[in-house]
């Protein structure tokens, strides 16, 4: 959390404090349990899961389920494991994140420092676009991707995520640059710097925190997307989430729970890592996007 721990003026008694700690620990357990259970059971052989206690430590440790989930498990028809779909996701996420962040930064810069008549309405239009239920665009999007020759391809998914992500990145950069002193831009104008030079030399060097926020937000959202992946991807471009769902819900054969868990953790790993490394900024970004609107 970015917020500095404030001097707290509320005093509490010993009984209350014990209750508070119990409550907090109970919920910590609630949040941790599914992840712990998944990790524990992804390291057990299948027989042990069926017969045994889900909270027990593995009697026989094995990484076999992980290897299977990564490279040999049956996803759809072929026993490819999740590996190709992991790379599909990477190939989709990286360009979509970079493009939407660059566009959001420039949009935020225009909307705060180069204001013109009607710019608030334009921003409102872009902002509302963040909140539409995507069901409303599924049908025409499928058609348009077909017309553009991008149906079922990774570039098609990049386009989709760019279109529906740029509203958020614009929102972040606009809120951030709104607090950036306009006098600096005016000073630079008098000094003779133009639109791009001011952005590059004056604003961008101070934009570190918000770039991190935008990248994390976009990365998490696009990596975790299921609806667009399920609707517009084919087998060669299918992202990790869709592949995981196929793996877990395939009705043929025995349910290999241990493999499913290993797969689920693999699918969660990139966002969890990003969150662990830069979680403080992540929360700050959520705040900026929601509390301040």
């Amino acid at each position: 959390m970015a917020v500095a721990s404030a001097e707290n003026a509320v005093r509490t008694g010993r009984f209350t404090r014990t209750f508070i700690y119990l409550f907090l620990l109970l919920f910590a357990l609630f949040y941790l349990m599914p992840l712990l259970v998944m990790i524990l059971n992804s390291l057990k052989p299948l027989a042990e899961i069926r017969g045994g206690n889900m909270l027990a430590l593995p009697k026989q440790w094995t990484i076999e389920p992980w290897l299977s989930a990564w490279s040999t498990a049956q996803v759809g028809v072929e026993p490819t494991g999740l590996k190709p779909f992991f790379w599909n996701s990477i190939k989709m996420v990286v360009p979509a994140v970079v493009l939407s962040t660059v566009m959001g930064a420039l949009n935020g810069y225009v909307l705060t420092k180069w204001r013109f008549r009607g710019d608030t309405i334009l921003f409102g239009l872009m902002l509302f676009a963040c909140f539409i239920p995507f069901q409303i665009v599924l049908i025409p999007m499928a058609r348009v991707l077909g017309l553009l020759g991008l149906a079922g391809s990774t570039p098609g998914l990049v386009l989709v995520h760019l279109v529906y992500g740029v509203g958020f990145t614009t929102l972040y950069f606009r809120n951030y640059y709104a607090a950036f002193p306009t006098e600096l831009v005016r000073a630079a104008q008098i000094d003779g710097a133009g639109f791009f030079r001011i952005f590059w030399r004056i604003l961008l060097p101070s934009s570190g925190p918000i770039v991190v926020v935008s990248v994390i937000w976009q990365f998490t959202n696009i990596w975790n997307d299921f609806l667009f992946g399920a609707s517009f991807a084919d087998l060669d471009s299918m992202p990790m989430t869709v592949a995981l769902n196929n793996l877990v819900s395939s009705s043929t054969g025995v349910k290999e729970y241990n493999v499913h868990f290993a797969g689920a953790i693999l699918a969660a790993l990139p966002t969890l890592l990003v969150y662990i490394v830069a979680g403080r900024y992540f929360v700050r970004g959520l705040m900026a996007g929601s509390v301040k609107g």
Partner: protein
Amino acid sequence: MALPSARADFKTRLQNLIPKLVLSPSLAMVLVFVYGFIIFTVYLSFTDSRILPSFGWVGFENYDKLFRLRHWDIAVANLAVFASLYIIISTVIGLSLAIFLDQKIRGEGFLRPIYLYPMALSFIVTGTAWKWLLDPGIGLEHTMHLWGWASFKFDWIKNRDYAIYTVVLAAVWQSSGFVMAMFLAGLRGIDNEILKAAQMDGASNWNLYRRIIIPQLRPAFLSAFVILSHLAIKSYDLVIALTGGGPGRATELPATFMYSYTFTRNQMGIGASSAVMMLMTIAAIMVPYLYAELKEKS
């Protein structure tokens, strides 16, 4: 910073033009891919489209059919139950955790990420984990039986009447930590001198929170409501991964309804009309909120 356009020199005119050029690709994208598509879908909802879009005008027939479908009724009723419980429970848990965490708790830096990490996960991962935890044959119920609590019964996910509550449970697990973060930021933003003044006035802790602090969290309540209701109406992935809409239609939501009618049952006209209903519901919540936010700023 509107510089004069008439009689202006080249540099001034160029500098006036560039910002609009820079904004225009995003704007064009949003206009076509959002507003254009909305218009297209609204149009489709008045046509006889089945497996593919077709343009035979049928007026309100699709809406008429939609409102007569028991399937749609179930989806809407489920959404009502799911959304209200999800919003209320997430808010209560989030607020409680935030207030308790704000009491100079040792290990706050350790607890906060634990509460928050589910937000970083995909709903598919959440669904996978909870589907199994809730499965009576192998998850919690089974474990309790192994521990000797033979009468323990927790089979909601297989029960038509209770399955929707398992969706609530998993969704609350995923989002309540995020609500906590919003309230915590709100609490940390309250002026300490007000709290000191209230204590001088002799307010008990209970009254301090009820009368002074919680009323000041109004913006956080509003934001939490807007975000959660928006997530609730859009939620699709979680249901797919957790229950697949079942058992039967017990956990069908408008989002899953739209998808199955449009893409698997080849009733595109009805699917489009259900999407329009979803959009109108969200717009009813978002438009006043965004309007107020933008107006306040400019």
